[in-house]
Protein backbone atom coordinates (compact mmCIF):
# COMPACT_ATOMS: atom_id res chain seq x y z
CA UNK A 1 0.00 0.00 0.00
CA UNK A 2 2.75 2.37 1.00
CA UNK A 3 4.63 1.60 -2.21
CA UNK A 4 1.48 2.44 -4.16
CA UNK A 5 1.25 5.72 -2.39
CA UNK A 6 4.92 6.64 -2.75
CA UNK A 7 4.79 5.76 -6.46
CA UNK A 8 1.88 8.15 -6.85
CA UNK A 9 3.85 10.71 -4.86
CA UNK A 10 6.71 10.34 -7.28
CA UNK A 11 4.60 10.55 -10.44
CA UNK A 12 2.02 13.12 -9.59
CA UNK A 13 4.15 16.29 -9.19
CA UNK A 14 5.90 16.07 -12.59
CA UNK A 15 2.63 15.12 -14.32
CA UNK A 16 0.94 18.18 -12.83
CA UNK A 17 3.93 20.36 -13.79
CA UNK A 18 3.83 19.18 -17.41
CA UNK A 19 0.05 19.61 -17.57
CA UNK A 20 0.49 23.20 -16.38
CA UNK A 21 3.17 23.81 -19.01
CA UNK A 22 0.89 22.47 -21.75
CA UNK A 23 -1.87 24.70 -20.40
CA UNK A 24 0.48 27.69 -20.55
CA UNK A 25 1.38 26.84 -24.14
CA UNK A 26 -2.29 26.61 -25.03
CA UNK A 27 -2.97 29.94 -23.34
CA UNK A 28 -0.13 31.68 -25.17
CA UNK A 29 -1.23 30.14 -28.45
CA UNK A 30 -4.77 31.46 -28.06
CA UNK A 31 -3.50 35.00 -27.60
CA UNK A 32 -0.79 34.80 -30.30
CA UNK A 33 -2.53 32.71 -32.90
CA UNK A 34 -0.39 34.20 -35.68
CA UNK A 35 2.87 32.96 -34.18
CA UNK A 36 2.14 29.98 -31.96
CA UNK A 37 0.05 26.99 -33.05
CA UNK A 38 -2.31 25.50 -30.47
CA UNK A 39 -1.60 22.21 -28.72
CA UNK A 40 -4.38 20.31 -30.57
CA UNK A 41 -3.22 21.72 -33.95
CA UNK A 42 0.34 20.61 -33.28
CA UNK A 43 -0.76 17.13 -32.24
CA UNK A 44 -2.99 16.93 -35.29
CA UNK A 45 0.01 17.74 -37.47
CA UNK A 46 1.80 14.76 -35.93
CA UNK A 47 -1.10 12.35 -36.29
CA UNK A 48 -1.84 13.49 -39.86
CA UNK A 49 1.69 12.86 -41.13
CA UNK A 50 3.16 10.12 -38.99
CA UNK A 51 5.28 8.68 -41.81
CA UNK A 52 6.87 12.04 -42.57
CA UNK A 53 7.87 12.68 -38.97
CA UNK A 54 8.95 9.07 -38.49
CA UNK A 55 11.29 9.06 -41.49
CA UNK A 56 12.86 12.39 -40.48
CA UNK A 57 13.25 11.16 -36.91
CA UNK A 58 15.10 8.09 -38.19
CA UNK A 59 17.51 10.34 -40.08
CA UNK A 60 18.27 12.38 -36.96
CA UNK A 61 18.55 9.23 -34.83
CA UNK A 62 21.05 7.82 -37.30
CA UNK A 63 23.12 11.00 -37.10
CA UNK A 64 23.08 10.80 -33.31
CA UNK A 65 24.00 7.12 -33.32
CA UNK A 66 26.78 7.35 -35.91
CA UNK A 67 28.20 10.58 -34.48
CA UNK A 68 28.17 9.28 -30.92
CA UNK A 69 29.64 5.90 -31.87
CA UNK A 70 32.40 7.51 -33.96
CA UNK A 71 33.19 9.90 -31.13
CA UNK A 72 33.37 7.11 -28.56
CA UNK A 73 35.55 4.98 -30.83
CA UNK A 74 37.97 7.91 -31.06
CA UNK A 75 37.71 9.26 -27.51
CA UNK A 76 37.95 6.07 -25.45
CA UNK A 77 41.15 4.63 -26.96
CA UNK A 78 42.65 8.12 -26.80
CA UNK A 79 41.75 8.24 -23.09
CA UNK A 80 43.43 4.85 -22.62
CA UNK A 81 46.58 6.20 -24.28
CA UNK A 82 46.47 9.37 -22.20
CA UNK A 83 46.02 7.32 -19.05
CA UNK A 84 49.15 5.28 -19.78
CA UNK A 85 51.39 7.86 -21.46
CA UNK A 86 51.44 11.19 -19.66
CA UNK A 87 53.22 12.87 -22.60
CA UNK A 88 50.31 12.09 -24.90
CA UNK A 89 47.93 13.66 -22.41
CA UNK A 90 50.13 16.75 -22.06
CA UNK A 91 50.31 17.10 -25.84
CA UNK A 92 46.73 16.38 -26.81
CA UNK A 93 44.57 17.54 -23.91
CA UNK A 94 45.18 21.24 -24.77
CA UNK A 95 44.22 20.47 -28.37
CA UNK A 96 41.03 18.82 -27.15
CA UNK A 97 40.30 21.87 -24.99
CA UNK A 98 40.77 24.21 -27.97
CA UNK A 99 38.40 22.08 -30.04
CA UNK A 100 35.94 22.13 -27.16
CA UNK A 101 35.91 25.92 -26.75
CA UNK A 102 35.59 26.61 -30.48
CA UNK A 103 31.88 27.03 -31.26
CA UNK A 104 31.04 24.15 -33.56
CA UNK A 105 28.45 26.23 -35.42
CA UNK A 106 31.22 28.61 -36.52
CA UNK A 107 33.09 26.02 -38.53
CA UNK A 108 30.28 23.61 -39.41
CA UNK A 109 29.81 25.37 -42.81
CA UNK A 110 33.43 24.50 -43.58
CA UNK A 111 32.47 20.84 -43.37
CA UNK A 112 29.71 21.46 -45.89
CA UNK A 113 32.25 23.06 -48.23
CA UNK A 114 34.56 20.10 -47.73
CA UNK A 115 32.10 17.22 -47.78
CA UNK A 116 28.99 18.60 -49.46
CA UNK A 117 25.39 18.41 -48.25
CA UNK A 118 25.45 14.67 -47.49
CA UNK A 119 25.50 12.98 -44.11
CA UNK A 120 29.26 13.32 -43.50
CA UNK A 121 29.28 16.89 -42.15
CA UNK A 122 26.33 16.02 -39.88
CA UNK A 123 28.10 12.97 -38.45
CA UNK A 124 31.21 15.08 -37.94
CA UNK A 125 29.48 17.91 -36.12
CA UNK A 126 27.58 15.48 -33.88
CA UNK A 127 30.78 13.58 -33.11
CA UNK A 128 32.72 16.74 -32.29
CA UNK A 129 30.03 18.09 -29.96
CA UNK A 130 30.19 15.00 -27.73
CA UNK A 131 33.91 14.29 -28.09
CA UNK A 132 35.22 16.34 -25.18
CA UNK A 133 32.80 15.14 -22.48
CA UNK A 134 33.40 11.56 -23.65
CA UNK A 135 37.17 11.99 -23.50
CA UNK A 136 37.26 13.68 -20.10
CA UNK A 137 34.85 11.20 -18.54
CA UNK A 138 36.65 8.19 -20.01
CA UNK A 139 39.95 9.46 -18.64
CA UNK A 140 38.42 10.15 -15.22
CA UNK A 141 36.91 6.64 -15.25
CA UNK A 142 40.17 4.95 -16.18
CA UNK A 143 41.99 6.96 -13.51
CA UNK A 144 39.40 6.16 -10.85
CA UNK A 145 41.09 2.84 -10.06
CA UNK A 146 41.64 2.48 -6.30
CA UNK A 147 45.38 3.03 -5.58
CA UNK A 148 45.33 0.21 -3.06
CA UNK A 149 43.90 -2.21 -5.62
CA UNK A 150 46.66 -1.03 -7.96
CA UNK A 151 49.16 -1.93 -5.21
CA UNK A 152 47.64 -5.39 -4.96
CA UNK A 153 47.91 -5.76 -8.74
CA UNK A 154 51.53 -4.61 -8.69
CA UNK A 155 52.57 -7.13 -6.06
CA UNK A 156 50.99 -9.77 -8.29
CA UNK A 157 53.08 -8.34 -11.14
CA UNK A 158 49.94 -7.98 -13.26
CA UNK A 159 50.70 -6.59 -16.72
CA UNK A 160 49.36 -3.17 -17.67
CA UNK A 161 47.07 -5.00 -20.08
CA UNK A 162 45.66 -7.04 -17.19
CA UNK A 163 45.25 -3.91 -15.07
CA UNK A 164 43.45 -2.23 -17.95
CA UNK A 165 41.19 -5.17 -18.66
CA UNK A 166 40.37 -6.30 -15.14
CA UNK A 167 40.47 -2.99 -13.28
CA UNK A 168 40.41 0.18 -15.35
CA UNK A 169 37.86 -0.79 -18.00
CA UNK A 170 35.16 -2.07 -15.65
CA UNK A 171 35.88 0.85 -13.33
CA UNK A 172 35.28 3.35 -16.12
CA UNK A 173 31.81 2.01 -16.94
CA UNK A 174 29.91 4.18 -14.42
CA UNK A 175 31.74 7.23 -15.74
CA UNK A 176 30.88 6.31 -19.33
CA UNK A 177 27.21 5.94 -18.46
CA UNK A 178 27.25 9.29 -16.65
CA UNK A 179 28.85 10.76 -19.78
CA UNK A 180 26.05 9.19 -21.81
CA UNK A 181 23.47 11.01 -19.73
CA UNK A 182 25.07 14.27 -20.86
CA UNK A 183 26.18 13.24 -24.33
CA UNK A 184 23.02 11.65 -25.73
CA UNK A 185 20.93 14.86 -25.52
CA UNK A 186 24.02 16.82 -26.54
CA UNK A 187 24.38 14.64 -29.64
CA UNK A 188 20.77 15.48 -30.55
CA UNK A 189 21.68 19.18 -30.28
CA UNK A 190 24.70 18.55 -32.51
CA UNK A 191 22.66 16.72 -35.11
CA UNK A 192 19.95 19.41 -35.25
CA UNK A 193 22.55 22.20 -35.47
CA UNK A 194 24.31 20.33 -38.26
CA UNK A 195 21.01 19.94 -40.10
CA UNK A 196 20.38 23.71 -39.80
CA UNK A 197 23.80 24.56 -41.18
CA UNK A 198 23.88 21.87 -43.83
CA UNK A 199 20.16 21.82 -44.45
CA UNK A 200 20.17 21.72 -48.26
CA UNK A 201 17.68 19.20 -49.52
CA UNK A 202 18.45 16.57 -46.91
CA UNK A 203 16.01 15.29 -44.35
CA UNK A 204 16.07 15.15 -40.57
CA UNK A 205 14.04 16.88 -37.85
CA UNK A 206 16.33 19.92 -37.89
CA UNK A 207 16.11 20.27 -41.64
CA UNK A 208 12.36 19.88 -41.34
CA UNK A 209 12.19 22.82 -38.92
CA UNK A 210 14.48 24.88 -41.15
CA UNK A 211 12.35 24.22 -44.24
CA UNK A 212 9.08 24.86 -42.38
CA UNK A 213 10.46 28.18 -41.17
CA UNK A 214 10.86 29.35 -44.76
CA UNK A 215 7.36 28.30 -45.74
CA UNK A 216 5.87 29.49 -42.42
CA UNK A 217 4.38 26.09 -41.44
CA UNK A 218 4.13 26.76 -37.72
CA UNK A 219 2.52 23.47 -36.75
CA UNK A 220 5.32 21.51 -38.48
CA UNK A 221 7.96 23.43 -36.50
CA UNK A 222 6.24 22.81 -33.19
CA UNK A 223 5.47 19.20 -34.00
CA UNK A 224 9.13 18.58 -34.88
CA UNK A 225 10.17 20.15 -31.58
CA UNK A 226 7.77 17.86 -29.73
CA UNK A 227 9.34 14.87 -31.49
CA UNK A 228 12.82 16.09 -30.54
CA UNK A 229 11.75 16.36 -26.90
CA UNK A 230 10.36 12.83 -27.05
CA UNK A 231 13.60 11.62 -28.63
CA UNK A 232 15.69 13.19 -25.87
CA UNK A 233 13.48 11.60 -23.23
CA UNK A 234 13.71 8.16 -24.83
CA UNK A 235 17.50 8.41 -25.01
CA UNK A 236 17.72 9.50 -21.37
CA UNK A 237 15.46 6.63 -20.35
CA UNK A 238 17.76 4.30 -22.31
CA UNK A 239 20.74 5.41 -20.21
CA UNK A 240 18.78 4.91 -17.01
CA UNK A 241 17.90 1.42 -18.18
CA UNK A 242 21.54 0.65 -19.02
CA UNK A 243 22.66 1.90 -15.61
CA UNK A 244 20.14 -0.32 -13.89
CA UNK A 245 21.22 -3.35 -15.87
CA UNK A 246 24.98 -2.84 -15.88
CA UNK A 247 25.63 -1.30 -12.49
CA UNK A 248 23.68 -3.70 -10.27
CA UNK A 249 26.76 -4.05 -8.05
CA UNK A 250 26.48 -0.42 -7.03
CA UNK A 251 23.33 -0.83 -5.02
CA UNK A 252 23.22 -4.41 -3.94
CA UNK A 253 19.66 -3.96 -2.74
CA UNK A 254 18.29 -3.11 -6.17
CA UNK A 255 19.33 -6.47 -7.50
CA UNK A 256 16.87 -8.30 -5.29
CA UNK A 257 14.04 -5.83 -5.76
Amino acid at each position, binding site marked *: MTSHRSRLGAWLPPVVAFALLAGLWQLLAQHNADFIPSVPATMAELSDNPALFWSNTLVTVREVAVGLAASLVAAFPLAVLMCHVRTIERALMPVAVVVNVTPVVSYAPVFVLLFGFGSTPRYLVTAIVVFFPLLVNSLAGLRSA*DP*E*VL*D*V*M*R*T*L*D*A*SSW*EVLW*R*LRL*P*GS*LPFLLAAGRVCLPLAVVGAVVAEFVASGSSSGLGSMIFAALETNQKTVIYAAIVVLVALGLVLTALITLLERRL*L*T*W*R*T*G*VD*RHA
Partner: protein
Amino acid sequence: MLGTAPDPDAVVLQDVSKSFHTRGGPVRALAGVDLTVGRGKFVTLIGPSGCGKSTLLRVVAGLIEADAGEVSIFGESARRACAQKRVGFVPQTPALLPWRTVLDNVRLPLQVNRSASAGRVPSRRPAEILEAVGLGGVLDRHPNELSGGMQQRVAIARAFAFDPAILVMDEPFSSLDEMTREVLRSELLGLWQDHRTTVLFVTHSVAEAIVLSDAVVVLSGPPGRIQAVVPVDLPRPRRDLVELTDEYHALERRVRLELRGAWSDRDAKS
Protein backbone atom coordinates in the same frame (compact mmCIF):
# COMPACT_ATOMS: atom_id res chain seq x y z
CA MET B 1 77.12 -6.48 -1.83
CA LEU B 2 77.73 -7.35 1.78
CA GLY B 3 79.24 -10.60 0.67
CA THR B 4 76.77 -12.91 2.35
CA ALA B 5 74.77 -15.29 0.21
CA PRO B 6 71.00 -14.57 0.38
CA ASP B 7 69.26 -16.98 2.72
CA PRO B 8 66.78 -19.04 0.65
CA ASP B 9 64.77 -19.81 3.77
CA ALA B 10 64.15 -16.34 5.15
CA VAL B 11 63.15 -12.81 4.31
CA VAL B 12 66.26 -10.78 4.97
CA LEU B 13 66.69 -7.01 5.03
CA GLN B 14 70.24 -5.72 5.36
CA ASP B 15 71.00 -2.10 6.06
CA VAL B 16 67.92 -0.92 4.12
CA SER B 17 67.56 2.85 3.73
CA LYS B 18 65.00 4.95 1.93
CA SER B 19 64.47 8.68 1.48
CA PHE B 20 61.62 10.53 -0.15
CA HIS B 21 61.95 13.79 -1.98
CA THR B 22 59.46 16.36 -0.82
CA ARG B 23 59.09 20.06 -1.34
CA GLY B 24 60.94 20.69 1.90
CA GLY B 25 63.87 18.56 0.77
CA PRO B 26 64.63 14.87 1.19
CA VAL B 27 62.99 13.09 4.11
CA ARG B 28 64.63 9.95 5.46
CA ALA B 29 62.00 7.27 6.01
CA LEU B 30 64.27 4.30 6.77
CA ALA B 31 67.82 4.40 8.07
CA GLY B 32 69.76 1.15 8.03
CA VAL B 33 67.13 -1.44 8.86
CA ASP B 34 68.31 -5.01 9.47
CA LEU B 35 65.64 -7.65 9.84
CA THR B 36 65.36 -11.38 9.34
CA VAL B 37 62.04 -13.21 9.19
CA GLY B 38 62.32 -16.97 9.08
CA ARG B 39 60.06 -18.99 6.80
CA GLY B 40 56.64 -19.59 8.32
CA LYS B 41 57.08 -16.93 11.00
CA PHE B 42 54.50 -14.30 11.90
CA VAL B 43 56.31 -11.03 12.56
CA THR B 44 54.66 -7.74 13.51
CA LEU B 45 56.00 -4.23 13.03
CA ILE B 46 54.87 -1.67 15.55
CA GLY B 47 55.97 1.90 16.19
CA PRO B 48 54.96 5.52 16.37
CA SER B 49 53.02 7.10 13.50
CA GLY B 50 55.25 8.11 10.64
CA CYS B 51 58.14 5.92 11.81
CA GLY B 52 58.44 4.21 8.45
CA LYS B 53 56.52 0.99 9.16
CA SER B 54 54.51 1.27 5.97
CA THR B 55 57.59 2.23 3.96
CA LEU B 56 59.39 -0.85 5.23
CA LEU B 57 56.38 -2.97 4.35
CA ARG B 58 56.16 -1.51 0.86
CA VAL B 59 59.85 -2.17 0.27
CA VAL B 60 59.30 -5.85 1.11
CA ALA B 61 56.16 -5.91 -1.09
CA GLY B 62 58.19 -4.61 -4.03
CA LEU B 63 56.05 -1.48 -4.24
CA ILE B 64 58.95 0.89 -3.61
CA GLU B 65 62.64 0.32 -4.02
CA ALA B 66 65.17 0.91 -1.27
CA ASP B 67 67.88 3.50 -1.92
CA ALA B 68 70.51 1.37 -0.25
CA GLY B 69 70.82 -2.05 1.32
CA GLU B 70 69.67 -5.51 0.35
CA VAL B 71 66.21 -7.03 0.36
CA SER B 72 65.99 -10.76 -0.12
CA ILE B 73 62.70 -12.62 -0.21
CA PHE B 74 63.75 -16.24 0.21
CA GLY B 75 66.81 -15.58 -1.92
CA GLU B 76 65.15 -13.37 -4.56
CA SER B 77 64.86 -9.62 -4.95
CA ALA B 78 61.49 -8.15 -3.99
CA ARG B 79 60.59 -7.38 -7.62
CA ARG B 80 61.51 -10.89 -8.73
CA ALA B 81 59.52 -12.41 -5.89
CA CYS B 82 56.52 -10.39 -7.08
CA ALA B 83 57.11 -11.45 -10.68
CA GLN B 84 56.99 -15.05 -9.48
CA LYS B 85 53.79 -14.29 -7.58
CA ARG B 86 55.23 -15.13 -4.20
CA VAL B 87 54.17 -11.95 -2.42
CA GLY B 88 50.64 -11.25 -1.16
CA PHE B 89 49.68 -7.74 -0.14
CA VAL B 90 46.78 -6.80 2.13
CA PRO B 91 46.34 -3.02 2.23
CA GLN B 92 44.65 -0.93 4.90
CA THR B 93 41.29 -0.89 3.09
CA PRO B 94 39.78 -4.09 1.71
CA ALA B 95 40.48 -2.79 -1.82
CA LEU B 96 37.99 -5.13 -3.48
CA LEU B 97 36.63 -4.74 -6.99
CA PRO B 98 33.03 -3.60 -6.38
CA TRP B 99 31.69 -5.09 -9.62
CA ARG B 100 32.98 -8.56 -8.79
CA THR B 101 31.28 -11.01 -6.48
CA VAL B 102 33.01 -12.13 -3.30
CA LEU B 103 34.15 -15.34 -4.97
CA ASP B 104 35.41 -13.56 -8.09
CA ASN B 105 37.34 -11.09 -5.97
CA VAL B 106 39.18 -13.96 -4.31
CA ARG B 107 39.83 -15.50 -7.72
CA LEU B 108 41.49 -12.33 -9.00
CA PRO B 109 45.08 -13.27 -8.06
CA LEU B 110 44.67 -16.57 -9.90
CA GLN B 111 43.57 -14.74 -13.05
CA VAL B 112 46.45 -12.29 -13.45
CA ASN B 113 50.10 -13.04 -14.24
CA ARG B 114 49.18 -16.68 -14.83
CA SER B 115 52.48 -17.68 -16.37
CA ALA B 116 54.22 -16.99 -13.03
CA SER B 117 52.14 -19.55 -11.20
CA ALA B 118 51.81 -22.08 -14.01
CA GLY B 119 52.04 -25.58 -12.60
CA ARG B 120 51.52 -24.42 -9.02
CA VAL B 121 48.30 -25.70 -7.54
CA PRO B 122 47.01 -23.65 -4.62
CA SER B 123 46.49 -25.75 -1.51
CA ARG B 124 42.89 -24.64 -1.24
CA ARG B 125 40.31 -23.34 -3.71
CA PRO B 126 38.93 -19.80 -3.25
CA ALA B 127 35.54 -21.09 -2.12
CA GLU B 128 37.17 -23.26 0.56
CA ILE B 129 39.17 -20.34 1.94
CA LEU B 130 36.05 -18.20 2.04
CA GLU B 131 34.26 -21.05 3.77
CA ALA B 132 37.03 -21.13 6.38
CA VAL B 133 36.49 -17.46 7.26
CA GLY B 134 32.73 -17.90 7.48
CA LEU B 135 31.82 -16.40 4.12
CA GLY B 136 30.57 -19.58 2.48
CA GLY B 137 27.05 -18.16 2.36
CA VAL B 138 27.85 -14.93 0.54
CA LEU B 139 30.02 -16.13 -2.36
CA ASP B 140 27.85 -14.44 -4.99
CA ARG B 141 27.25 -11.19 -3.14
CA HIS B 142 28.92 -7.95 -4.07
CA PRO B 143 31.28 -6.14 -1.68
CA ASN B 144 28.92 -3.24 -0.96
CA GLU B 145 26.38 -5.72 0.41
CA LEU B 146 28.87 -6.74 3.11
CA SER B 147 29.95 -5.18 6.40
CA GLY B 148 33.46 -3.74 6.77
CA GLY B 149 34.62 -6.79 8.68
CA MET B 150 33.30 -9.15 6.00
CA GLN B 151 34.98 -7.10 3.28
CA GLN B 152 38.29 -7.32 5.10
CA ARG B 153 37.82 -11.11 5.41
CA VAL B 154 37.42 -11.26 1.64
CA ALA B 155 40.62 -9.24 1.21
CA ILE B 156 42.49 -11.67 3.47
CA ALA B 157 41.04 -14.69 1.69
CA ARG B 158 42.17 -13.14 -1.60
CA ALA B 159 45.72 -12.83 -0.27
CA PHE B 160 45.80 -16.50 0.75
CA ALA B 161 44.19 -17.72 -2.48
CA PHE B 162 47.41 -18.05 -4.47
CA ASP B 163 49.55 -19.42 -1.64
CA PRO B 164 52.12 -16.62 -1.55
CA ALA B 165 55.39 -17.37 0.22
CA ILE B 166 55.05 -14.14 2.20
CA LEU B 167 52.02 -12.10 3.16
CA VAL B 168 52.54 -8.41 3.77
CA MET B 169 49.71 -6.79 5.72
CA ASP B 170 49.45 -3.05 6.32
CA GLU B 171 47.17 -2.44 9.33
CA PRO B 172 44.38 -4.49 7.76
CA PHE B 173 42.16 -4.27 10.85
CA SER B 174 42.63 -0.60 11.64
CA SER B 175 39.19 0.51 10.49
CA LEU B 176 37.28 -2.21 12.34
CA ASP B 177 35.66 -2.11 15.75
CA GLU B 178 37.34 -3.94 18.62
CA MET B 179 35.01 -6.96 18.63
CA THR B 180 35.34 -7.53 14.91
CA ARG B 181 39.10 -7.11 15.18
CA GLU B 182 39.32 -9.91 17.72
CA VAL B 183 37.29 -12.27 15.57
CA LEU B 184 39.36 -11.46 12.48
CA ARG B 185 42.59 -11.92 14.41
CA SER B 186 41.70 -15.47 15.33
CA GLU B 187 40.50 -16.19 11.80
CA LEU B 188 43.76 -14.86 10.40
CA LEU B 189 45.67 -17.07 12.84
CA GLY B 190 43.56 -20.02 11.70
CA LEU B 191 44.37 -19.39 8.04
CA TRP B 192 48.03 -18.83 8.87
CA GLN B 193 48.23 -22.14 10.76
CA ASP B 194 46.64 -23.95 7.82
CA HIS B 195 48.75 -22.33 5.12
CA ARG B 196 51.99 -21.84 7.03
CA THR B 197 52.66 -18.60 5.20
CA THR B 198 55.30 -16.16 6.35
CA VAL B 199 53.58 -12.96 7.51
CA LEU B 200 54.87 -9.43 7.99
CA PHE B 201 52.15 -7.44 9.69
CA VAL B 202 51.94 -3.76 10.59
CA THR B 203 49.72 -2.67 13.47
CA HIS B 204 49.23 0.10 15.99
CA SER B 205 47.81 -2.25 18.57
CA VAL B 206 50.19 -3.78 21.10
CA ALA B 207 47.66 -6.47 21.98
CA GLU B 208 47.21 -7.41 18.34
CA ALA B 209 50.97 -7.58 17.84
CA ILE B 210 51.51 -9.93 20.77
CA VAL B 211 48.51 -12.19 20.20
CA LEU B 212 49.41 -12.74 16.56
CA SER B 213 53.18 -12.85 16.40
CA ASP B 214 56.26 -14.94 16.88
CA ALA B 215 58.19 -11.70 17.22
CA VAL B 216 57.24 -8.04 17.66
CA VAL B 217 59.58 -5.59 15.96
CA VAL B 218 59.45 -2.16 17.58
CA LEU B 219 60.47 0.63 15.21
CA SER B 220 61.53 4.14 16.16
CA GLY B 221 61.66 7.07 13.85
CA PRO B 222 61.54 8.85 11.57
CA PRO B 223 63.86 7.90 10.11
CA GLY B 224 62.75 4.34 10.77
CA ARG B 225 65.17 2.07 12.52
CA ILE B 226 64.71 -1.01 14.66
CA GLN B 227 64.42 -0.17 18.34
CA ALA B 228 63.99 -3.73 19.57
CA VAL B 229 62.86 -7.19 18.56
CA VAL B 230 60.70 -8.81 21.23
CA PRO B 231 60.29 -12.57 20.74
CA VAL B 232 56.84 -13.87 21.66
CA ASP B 233 56.98 -17.44 22.94
CA LEU B 234 53.36 -17.81 23.97
CA PRO B 235 52.31 -21.35 23.02
CA ARG B 236 50.44 -21.95 19.80
CA PRO B 237 47.70 -22.31 18.86
CA ARG B 238 46.99 -19.26 20.95
CA ARG B 239 44.04 -19.81 23.22
CA ASP B 240 41.16 -17.43 23.59
CA LEU B 241 41.85 -14.83 26.27
CA VAL B 242 45.58 -15.40 26.11
CA GLU B 243 45.63 -11.68 26.97
CA LEU B 244 44.74 -12.59 30.56
CA THR B 245 47.89 -14.67 31.24
CA ASP B 246 50.91 -13.42 33.16
CA GLU B 247 53.22 -14.28 30.27
CA TYR B 248 51.20 -12.03 28.01
CA HIS B 249 51.35 -9.19 30.54
CA ALA B 250 55.12 -9.45 30.83
CA LEU B 251 55.39 -9.21 27.03
CA GLU B 252 52.98 -6.30 26.84
CA ARG B 253 55.02 -4.47 29.48
CA ARG B 254 58.19 -5.02 27.48
CA VAL B 255 56.70 -3.89 24.18
CA ARG B 256 55.15 -0.82 25.76
CA LEU B 257 58.44 0.17 27.38
CA GLU B 258 60.24 -0.22 24.06
CA LEU B 259 57.55 1.85 22.37
CA ARG B 260 57.98 4.55 25.03
CA GLY B 261 61.68 4.49 24.21
CA ALA B 262 60.88 4.88 20.51
CA TRP B 263 58.70 7.88 21.28
CA SER B 264 61.21 9.63 23.51
CA ASP B 265 63.92 9.08 20.86
CA ARG B 266 61.71 10.91 18.50
CA ASP B 267 60.93 13.75 20.90
CA ALA B 268 64.61 14.20 21.63
CA LYS B 269 65.25 14.72 17.93
CA SER B 270 62.38 17.01 17.08
